[in-house]
């Protein structure tokens, strides 16, 4: 993507340079078709040239056990008894949801380290990242990870490089069962509702779409078998950007900026009214 596509930038009050309007995109993950084969994990590794460490087995099928700076997507497995004696093995592909109102971007103090493109993709620009970890705090879904190797934050880019040239993200391209679709946000929302309806018809009464409004909607959506209970698959029910981040960006930051401005103005006044501070000769020598 290019700067002309950038709609929002972290750590900057200057208007974003984006002048292009391109359709918003979305990835849709259909939980009912996902078999947890991890082909998406391998595709992600291979497209992005990431190779995580070979870990160990800690008693679960989730491998690696968590998202890492080199593992941007991960299958999470949940054995739940949704009703008495009714076991379900729910499998969710975890990774960045690319919020319309991204908590990470809001929290990030480094100018241009996190950008949101007009197609909705939220991308980390690592050369601008200062490794402060505010994005981790700002994310309602616990997605970004800081690399110990270079002290920068990493997460799924929704394959912004592929999308920029008209291709679907690597995970979508690879998914063998059609559990992941990609298209315009509008098309994906329509298809998601259709799938949720089909699942309710099949007997999954709680089926629905996960596109939480608290973060302005997301550009990675889910069709969940139990959308009424997203916490079953480790998703927050009503996610929102944390109050601290909202306060910082929404209320405190303008005040802080105003205070900084006021301080500068006071200095200027002092200069005009009192004149420059003069340095005595002997003080110069001491310095």
């Amino acid at each position, binding site marked *: 993507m290019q700067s002309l596509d950038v709609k929002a930038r972290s750590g900057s009050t200057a208007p974003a340079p984006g002048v292009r309007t391109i359709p918003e995109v979305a990835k849709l993950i259909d939980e*009912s*078709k*996902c*078999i*947890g*084969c*991890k*082909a998406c*994990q*391998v595709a992600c*590794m*291979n497209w992005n040239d990431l*190779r*995580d*460490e*070979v*870990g*160990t*087995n*800690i*008693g*679960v*099928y989730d*491998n*690696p056990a968590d998202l890492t700076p080199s*593992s941007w997507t991960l299958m999470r497995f949940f*054995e739940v*008894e949704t009703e008495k004696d009714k*076991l*379900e*093995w*729910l*499998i969710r592909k975890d990774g960045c949801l690319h919020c319309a109102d991204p908590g990470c971007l809001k929290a990030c103090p480094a100018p241009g380290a996190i950008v949101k493109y007009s197609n909705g993709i939220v991308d980390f620009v690592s050369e601008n990242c200062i490794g402060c970890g505010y994005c981790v705090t700002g994310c309602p879904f616990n997605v970004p990870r800081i690399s110990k190797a270079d002290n920068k934050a990493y997460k799924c880019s929704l394959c912004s490089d592929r999308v920029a040239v008209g291709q679907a993200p690597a995970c979508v391209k690879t998914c*063998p*069962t*059609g*559990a992941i679709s990609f298209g315009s946000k509008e098309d994906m929302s329509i298809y998601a509702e259709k*799938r949720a309806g*089909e699942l309710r018809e*099949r*007997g999954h009464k709680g089926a629905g779409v996960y596109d939480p409004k608290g973060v302005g909607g997301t550009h990675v959506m889910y069709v969940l078998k139990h959308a009424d209970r997203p916490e079953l698959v480790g998703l927050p029910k009503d996610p929102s950007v944390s109050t601290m981040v909202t306060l910082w960006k929404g209320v405190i930051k303008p005040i802080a900026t105003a205070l900084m401005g006021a301080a500068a103005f006071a200095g200027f006044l002092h200069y005009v009214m009192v004149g420059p501070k003069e340095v005595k000769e002997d003080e110069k020598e001491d310095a």
Partner: protein
Amino acid sequence: MTNNWVDIKNTDLVLIMGGNAAEAHPCGFKWVTEAMQQRKAKLIVVDPRFTRSAAVADTYAPVRVGADIAFLGGVINYLLANNKFHEEYVKAYTDATFLTKEGFNFDNGVFSGYDDAKRTYNRATWGYQLGEDGFVKVDDAMQDARCVFQQMKKHYSRYTPELVEQVAGTPKDAFLKIAQQIGETSAPNKVMTILYALGWTQHTVGSQNIRTMAMIQLLLGNMGRPGGGVNALRGHANVQGITDMCAYSDTLPGYLGAPLDGDVDRAAYLKRLTGKPLRPNQMAFTQNFPKWHTSLMKAWWGDAANKDNDFAFEYLPKKDAAYDILHMFELMHQGKMHGFVCQGFNPLAALPNKKKLSAALAKLKFLVVADPLETETSEFWKNFGPLNDVDPKTIQTEVFRLPTTTFAEESGSFTNSSRVLQWKEKAADAPGEGKADSEIMARIFVKMREMYRKDGGKAPEPIVNLSWPYQVAEAPSPAEILREYSGRALVDLMTLPNPKDPTAKPTVAVPAGQLSSFAQLRDDGTTACGNWLYCGSWSPAGNLTARRDNSDPSGLGVYPNWGYSWPANRRILYNRAAADTKGNHWDATRKYLSWNGKTWSGVDVPDMRPTAAPEENVGPFIMNPEGVARLHAIGMADGPFPEHYEPFETPLGVNPLHPNNPKAVSNPAARVYKGDMETFGKAAEFPYAATTYRLTEHHHFWTKHAHSNAVTQPAPFIEIGDDLAKEKGFKNGQMVKVRSNRGEVRAALVVTKRMKGLKVNGKTVHTVGIPIHWGFKGVTQNGYLANALTPYVGDANSQTPEFKAFLVNIEKA
């Protein structure tokens, strides 16, 4: 597969049992999700574990490892007792109406003709009654007590829902719910498909597991129909191709029976294997056996196979015993086999009882391993601590490692589970000295031929006379080899004499050159064909396996011009059965093949003589001399009707169906070698049922060498249910030791709700799950080979080892 991958989308009901398609065949599983979304098909999974397939299923039920026939026999009983079978289909397309011999019976767990000492059956009393006309006697009303239908009904009447629960551990309610759903597909407008894999084959009753399912599909009228069939999901990209080429001792390419010691000459051999109709008007397609076999001999020995020398019949080895892989390692273990060439195969990991395998390899004089990777087999002589605790000083076997190309480093064709040959081009050169397997074999052959030519030796003719027409003798090209399989006319083939017009002058029927169909093969030495089933894959029009036309005019997923599907580019086998007895479609949503008044026509190549009018009653199962499918199968080693037998290591100690017959506990016809019976454990010492399986993240013992795969499933583990973990005081993630009577493995523990103890025959049977995939070479964490635990015994018919059901104990490591 009798059908094909894409065809799964045409079904109304998918049953996954004896396999775990989502886990082991994720790409093909897309057609299951397609059927579920587009056709609103339902998915049923029956498995000892709640698998990844079960995760997306509508219905799941547990079954005890090794008790599939109890479950499926229960389904047969349900269908017959509740009149849920497809009567028109069963009467016309199966042997249900045929009368069985008077002497045939089944008593206390064994069929008539059992020889206790040899552990084999004399099958003389099995099979059909023949009339004086040479045809089978039938009772169209299916009322005669000797007819197959009544015999089958009697046999399975014992398999009540209560018995299913008692033996298989499947709760009665869950069983009945599934049986009912299956039964609904007996309606002519409903079809079910069954997907299975090694979960059925790797048992001492493996072939019978599959047969039981085949019987169910026949009773339901689901064979030969779009969305139906019995579908084996093969394990490698080209394992179907290996089977088709029959690199086994039992068969020649194209499933032609190999000569036996008793076949004194070509005539005797051909007579034994050439079919003749057992019912009027049947095609009995194996009548053509002499054409296929003669053409094979011409492909192998060219001019050296001719009328004067019985088409080189004497060049073929005559089989005096089964030379399956278990038998080979048995001979090796006995010190009777001195050399072993091991190509694309890792037997130290892939066969049962590692201890015995390791001892066998150590007795060899030489071992050649041709493989792209370092395998456990090639390193069997090295000490890897407890993972491979051998003393190299005591092993004298000389090991040669020949690096080969991987699939991406050579051109050629794959034959997939759908029987479709697909050509692919080489993507990269092999690193280092890697050579294609064909080149390695060719170089060895050329060298050996030179030695035989120079020094003579015992029976040099088959070697020195072998047809070797390749441009570069030491590196035959895959294209040359496929053309040879596909076959050619050696001369212009003239029309055969017409009895109606004896004076007619023969004309050229087929010009010399590549053939387009096995129908053109002849038994007079004028055609050569390396595999009759592949005949036509490289036709005069060129390499049809390289076709990539993805048009599907019917919308039924036929793709007739994509690759080449054997036989005859047919996409669904037995597809005559896709139409009713009058030749009309069974169902309007799946119009596949029908009789148009003059010929059979439809969207696929008819599996029928095109001009055979329905009133001629030519049966759809043309490879059987009776023309119909067999519910009573005389060809099986262990009984014409499948019966439940316990695994050789049984957690029950008895067969609940025959509690008073110790000879009928486990398969009476399974082969057990001397010394192996003693290595089987008993439930008192090894109380838990164990099973091995594959995980989606890995491909056998290969991808442990790939970093991406290693990240997604890095280390070995053992799976048990949370109920057993609680009982034993085990915690998730802790190290445990699993022991069988043959060895042990240690790994981290995964405690899951997805495995539960099952109430079986009055006791609780817990299952211990042991994924394979790890070893002592590769980039994953190293691990114990799972086959340290498994018993050295195989299926009575195919000798496929019993990897899926044995006994272990589990303790803290």
